[in-house]
Structure formats: structure tokens, C-alpha cells
């Protein structure tokens, strides 16, 4: 391993060591590379050197973890405290990384789950009520929110598998139910971060068109203040949306995300994990609420983004996670396009140059999910089940299961419920694609003839046509009707009239693009003339 990166003018920290992992040390031994890592990280935080903190956090921590702690714990916070002036807040931050490492690499004990919860409580309490004067990288602050929810989710999962629990574990579960990783606690911490940071007011100002220092500086505070509370509050909005989605409450999830405009760049897009998380949960919730157009647009947008930037993330520790989410969102996009076949909303195969054709969303979708899509069109329910199960979030049951019946396995309960409701939606819309395909071929067709083509009786057809209308029109937040319909028709007594498919060529955008190109060209020419 080379000395990772050259830092002009920063001579302090060097993370290439010759020392090898050594089991012969006493348990309270703190290796030199840990001493210098924590010492330098501590100093960088105190000096508000965000760049250095980011490097240490993002790169050095994972390098050291990989090399020396792939199967063991980092030294405890108590052991490293002497090397960081026994700084209370630093130790909380250190422990945040410490437990994250345990969750990622080792078998987590009940004790550790409990301690990590306590640590988050202490850390958030200090941030909420203390006077924290730090500047931390957005990446780290996002990871805190993300990890906090992940550990909550992991605890809920852990708790549902009663079969292999010891008596001791069962009694702990009961004893700590209302204190540790309790859903009220988790939600209220995130809510408190949002409230106390007053981030919603900032975002409200931006809705009115103002550019706030918050967004202009990607959340950082260059006026000598701290970015920690503001940015944590901001990320907690997305965090809470995720929690609601995991609980199956899509309406509230979307209400949360309404504060952040995902069609524009924002602080959320400064951290790829956050960007993908926001888009994934926004898209998924919209899909579950039958707002397919919003879901398709969101998935398309983020899939294009991932495909264009993936090369920059190949070395990131999150790369595998990014690929997984990428695949999941293709599966969800396929589902949405079955419900609402508006392919023109998806990046077409002609959108990029020939060499990149295969990278376009449409091409990738056909390649990855083409087979599943055709199965879906044959109404093969297993295909829907597989796509949904593969791509859905890991739903949670927020309450303690019935401990008296330890033979039960409750781990699938929350997921099964959402799957069941999803499949019943599929069944309700099963006939609609067949109708779409026939209706498109006509400008007028009698109910009787269409019924015979679709192979149902007339009464059933009338109901199916109304179902189509109901499913493709929803009442928007402002009370007006919004349409996701791809085919427009109406019935005049016994005849269906189909509107001509509208070719909405976006002349305006084409003209604007050419005006700008032309202007650039003129600029170039003028410059040539001057020389």
C-alpha cells in the first residue's frame, strides 16, 4: 500500500505502516498507527480542517480497518482517550466509527447493540443541546444518519428471530424494549434534529427562490460556525422518510421528502449515498401510491446519474452498495413501466453517442429486466413477486414480537404484508395492458367488439375501462385531477373513442439548445477574428 495520497503543505499524517497485525499484545495495547490516526484526526477536527477530516474518515479509517481490524475490534474509546486529551465529543465520534466497524465486519453482540444505541443517544444529545463547534464532512454526517437507521433496522430484524435466542437474550429484549432501539426513540431523535436545526425554514426560503448560504456552500459554514446540526437536520429529513417507508407508510414518507426538491441539485446530491437513498425511497413510495410517472422520472434520472458517474466510485467502499441499488432500481423501473408504459420518459437508446448506446437506461433495462418484463406482460405473478422481493426495502416490524411463542419466526411479517398488498394491486390492473394494446389500434371501437377482442363480457369490459381511468388518474395534493394515462379515450354510450396519440415534440428545448450552441459558435468565431 503506497502512501495513499500526497498532501501539499499538510505534513502531519502518514498511513503507510509496516507493522502487521499481532495477537501477542496485551488487551489494552494501542498500536502506534491507531495512536497517530486518532491524534491526527482529533487535531484536524479541532483545527476545523474539513478536508483532512474527510480524508482521514473516508480513506484512512477504512484502510486501517481493512489491514489491521478485518476480524477484530478497534481499540476501545477508553484506551484511545489519553491520546486525544480525553476529549468527550471526540470519543463519541470515535465510538460511532468503532461500532459501525463492528456492525460491518463482526458478529454484533446484544451488549454492543445496546452500547451503540447509548452512544448515538449521547452524541445526538450533545449536538442537540451542547455547543458543538465542529465542522464535519457531509459524508460522515450522512453516514451517521444512515447508520443510525441501519442499526435500528438491524435490531428490529434481530428481535424477530426468536428461535435461536438464549433465555438471557429474551429477558434482555423484554427488559430493554422501551429503551434500546425503540421506534419512538429513533423517530424522535431524527425529528428533534430537524426541529432544532430549523432546517425546514431554510428550505422554505429556498422554495421561494432565495439562494441560502446553506445550499450555496453545500451545507458547510464558512463563517466560523458549525455545520453539524444543520446538516444532520437536513439528512434527518431523508432519514425519517426512509423510516416511514420501512414501516409501510408511503404517504408520510413522501410528505417528508416534499421539503427537498429532488429534481434540482442540493446538499443531498453532494453525497452519493444520500442521493441514491433519497431517490430510491422517493421512487418506491411513489410507486406504491400509484404515482408511476413521478417514480419513473426519478428512477430514470438517478440511473442516468449513476451510469455517468460510476467510474468515480469504483474505489469507494460503497461501490457494491451502489451497484445493488442500481440493480434494484432497474427492477422497480420495470415494474412501474408495466403499470404505466410511458417509455418516452426513460432515457432512450438514441440519447447518447453510438459508443455509449449500451449505457442508456432503456438499453440496460431491456438487457437486465427484459425477460422479467415479458413475463410480467404474460401476467406471470411469480415475475412480479421476484422483482418486488428483490427490489423492495427491508421492511420492519417496529414492535416487540410475542416472546411467549419463541417458535414463531416474525422476520418476514412486515415484508409479506407489503408484498401481498402490492400483488393485489397487480391483480387489479392485470387486464389493463391487454386493453391498452387493442385500444391503441383504433380511433373508435364498439364496446361489443372490444369485449370480444379482450375476451371478456361487455359488463366486465366497462368495469375494466373505468378501472383504467381510476388507476391512471389521481387527486393531486391541491385537489386537482392528475393523469398518468398513456392512452386517452372516452365512452359515448356503447362506443369507445380513442384520442390520437399526441406527439409532444419539445420544440422549445431543441430551439434553446441550438440557440446556445449557435451563440457559443459565434463567440468562438469572434475570438478568432480578434487575434
Amino acid at each position, binding site marked *: 500500500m503506497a502512501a495513499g495520497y500526497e498532501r501539499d503543505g499538510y505534513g502531519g499524517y502518514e498511513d503507510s505502516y509496516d507493522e502487521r497485525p499481532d495477537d501477542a499484545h496485551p488487551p489494552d495495547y494501542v498500536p502506534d498507527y491507531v495512536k497517530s490516526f486518532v491524534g491526527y484526526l482529533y487535531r484536524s477536527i479541532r483545527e476545523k480542517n474539513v478536508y483532512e477530516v474527510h480524508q482521514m474518515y473516508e480513506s484512512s479509517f477504512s484502510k486501517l480497518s481493512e489491514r489491521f481490524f478485518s476480524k477484530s475490534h478497534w481499540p476501545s474509546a477508553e484506551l484511545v482517550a489519553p491520546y486525544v486529551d480525553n476529549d468527550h465529543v471526540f470519543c463519541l465520534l470515535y465510538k460511532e466509527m468503532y461500532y459501525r466497524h463492528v456492525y460491518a465486519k463482526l458478529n454484533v453482540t446484544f451488549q454492543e447493540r445496546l452500547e451503540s444505541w447509548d452512544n448515538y443517544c449521547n452524541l445526538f444529545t450533545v449536538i442537540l443541546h451542547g455547543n458543538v463547534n465542529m465542522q464535519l464532512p457531509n459524508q460522515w454526517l450522512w453516514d451517521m444518519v444512515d447508520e443510525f437507521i441501519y442499526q435500528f433496522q438491524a435490531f428490529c430484524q434481530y428481535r424477530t428471530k426468536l428461535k435461536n435466542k438464549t433465555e438471557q437474550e429474551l429477558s434482555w429484549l423484554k427488559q430493554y424494549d422501551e429503551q434500546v432501539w425503540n421506534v419512538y426513540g429513533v*423517530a424522535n431523535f431524527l425529528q428533534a434534529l430537524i426541529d432544532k436545526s430549523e432546517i425546514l425554514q431554510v428550505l422554505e426560503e429556498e422554495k421561494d427562490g432565495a439562494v441560502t448560504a446553506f445550499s450555496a456552500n453545500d451545507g458547510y459554514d464558512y463563517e466560523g460556525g458549525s455545520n453539524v446540526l444543520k446538516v444532520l437536520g437536513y439528512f434527518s429529513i431523508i432519514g425519517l422518510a426512509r423510516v416511514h417507508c420501512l414501516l409501510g407508510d408511503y404517504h408520510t414518507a413522501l410528505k417528508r421528502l416534499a421539503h427537498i426538491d429532488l429534481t434540482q441539485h442540493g446538499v443531498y446530491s453532494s453525497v452519493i449515498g444520500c442521493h441514491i437513498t433519497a431517490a430510491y425511497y422517493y421512487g418506491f413510495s411513489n410507486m406504491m401510491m*400509484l404515482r408511476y410517472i413521478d417514480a419513473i422520472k426519478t428512477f430514470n434520472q438517478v440511473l442516468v446519474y449513476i451510469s455517468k458517474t460510476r467510474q468515480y466510485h469504483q474505489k469507494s467502499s460503497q461501490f457494491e452498495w451502489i451497484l445493488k441499488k442500481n440493480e434494484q432500481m432497474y427492477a422497480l423501473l420495470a415494474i412501474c413501466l408495466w403499470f404505466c408504459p410511458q417509455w418516452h420518459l426513460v432515457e432512450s437508446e438514441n440519447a447518447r453517442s453510438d459508443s455509449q448506446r449500451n449505457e442508456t437506461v432503456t438499453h440496460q433495462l431491456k438487457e437486465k429486466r427484459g425477460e422479467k418484463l415479458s413475463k410480467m406482460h404474460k401476467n406471470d405473478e411469480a415475475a412480479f413477486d421476484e422483482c418486488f422481493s428483490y427490489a423492495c426495502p427491508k421492511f420492519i416490524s417496529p414492535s416487540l414480537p410475542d416472546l411467549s411463542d419463541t417458535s414463531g419466526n416474525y422476520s418476514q411479517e412486515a415484508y409479506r*404484508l407489503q408484498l401481498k398488498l402490492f400483488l393485489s394491486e397487480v391483480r387489479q390492473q392485470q387486464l389493463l395492458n391487454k386493453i391498452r394494446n387493442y385500444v391503441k389500434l383504433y380511433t373508435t371501437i364498439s364496446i361489443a367488439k372490444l369485449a370480444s377482442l379482450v375476451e371478456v363480457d361487455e359488463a366486465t369490459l366497462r368495469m375494466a375501462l373505468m378501472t383504467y381511468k381510476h388507476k391512471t*388518474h389521481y387527486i393531486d395534493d391541491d385537489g386537482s385531477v392528475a393523469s398518468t394515462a398513456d392512452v386517452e379515450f*372516452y365512452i359515448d354510450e356503447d362506443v369507445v373513442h380513442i384520442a390520437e396519440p399526441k406527439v*409532444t415534440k419539445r420544440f422549445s428545448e431543441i430551439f434553446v439548445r441550438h440557440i446556445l450552441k449557435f451563440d457559443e459558435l459565434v463567440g468562438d468565431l469572434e475570438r478568432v477574428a480578434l487575434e
Partner: protein
Amino acid sequence: MVSEWEREQEQPQLTMEQLVALNPYNPDILPDLEAYVQEQVATETYSFDSNLCLLRLYQFEPRNLNVNIVTKILVKALMAMPAPDFGLCMCLVPERLHMLHPFFTLATLSHYLETARFREFWDEAARNRDILEVIPGFESAIQSYGVHVLSLTYQKVPRAVLAEALNLEGLSLDKYLEFHAANSGWKLHKGHGGSQVVTLPSNEYNDPSQRKNAGDNISLDVVSKLFPVLA
């Protein structure tokens, strides 16, 4: 969170919606939310957000779940059709309840409405008066939904189709039609087969020619890209 709750106690002018917005995760407001469900039933009002908040509190502590209250929430959600509220509520109701009465019945009713099977819906509803008729306004709310779906679909709707959706016949249907002819612009006439046909007011969904052509509009985003050139 407790302090916030106490503060609100001193300010009784807060509406239930505001209370919910300030206390999205506070078990102490559970009794108020339950009382508010009863109030919505009695006054024929509806607040999806506060009902959803109550279902969330039940989800967090299932031992508090009150089947009677959940039933009322679900019936109110059916009445909110075409909004997707019923399905969204069911996402929070524990699965073990889904197969039990009255939840199974309500899910069946919802399925009929979602797929516009009005005949089956009204038949099933008639068999379950005990849970539906205690909610004032049920029938007319479903009829409004029927009219909503018909207006999206039909320019001219045969009387028989209308009768089925509204669950009205003979004189009571005549009265209903007359009322809407006088107030909502419905027109009654004889159709091709000699039976009565109702022309519903046109809107952009049952009359595509009324649709605004989205392609004709230029969004500010696009125009703003030209500002540097125009400057």
C-alpha cells in the same frame, strides 16, 4: 418531547392537525386521536393525516390497538375514494387482522371499488350494514366516487350503468338525475336503443380535445438558459 406536549396543553386552540404535526411520534396523544375519529364520524369530516398518525401509534404498540376505531378509520378511508387512503391504511394494519372480520370484508369492498365492480360492491355492502351504516354519509360518499369515475370515462352513459354505480333505481334514480340536471349540468335524453342516456359535463378526461397541449408551454427553466445570451 414531553415538554412540548405540556406546552400544547396550555394552548387548547391547537387543531388536531397541528397537534399531530407537532407530535408525530407521541403516544400521549393517542386518546385524543381516538376521540377525534369519533368526532369525524359524528360531524362527517375527515382527516387522513391524523388517522394515519393513530394507526402509526397502534403499529408501534399493537397492544393499544382498538379494533372498533380501526374499523371506523377504514370505512372513512373507503369514503375518501378515489384517494388511495384505504390501501395506505391497510399497509399499517397488522397482517394477522387482514383475514378477520370486519377487515376482510372491508378489503373486499375496497377491491370492488378499485375495480369499479359497483354491483358486487353494493351487494356486499348490503350484507354488512352493521359496520357501514353507523358511519353517516357512507352511501353518498361512494355515490360521489361512482360519479367521479363515470365522469372520467363517459361522455354519454347509459342509464343502466349509472343505476348500477349509484345503486339507485326507478323513482329515486329519477330524482337523483333531476337534481344533477338542475345543479351539475347533466343532460338526459333518449339513446340509440331507446333507453335513457345521460350526458355528463365534459372535462379534459372524457373529452381529450379539451386537453391543454403541454408541448405548447415553455417552462421558465428552459427560457432561463437563454438569459446569458439575451443579456
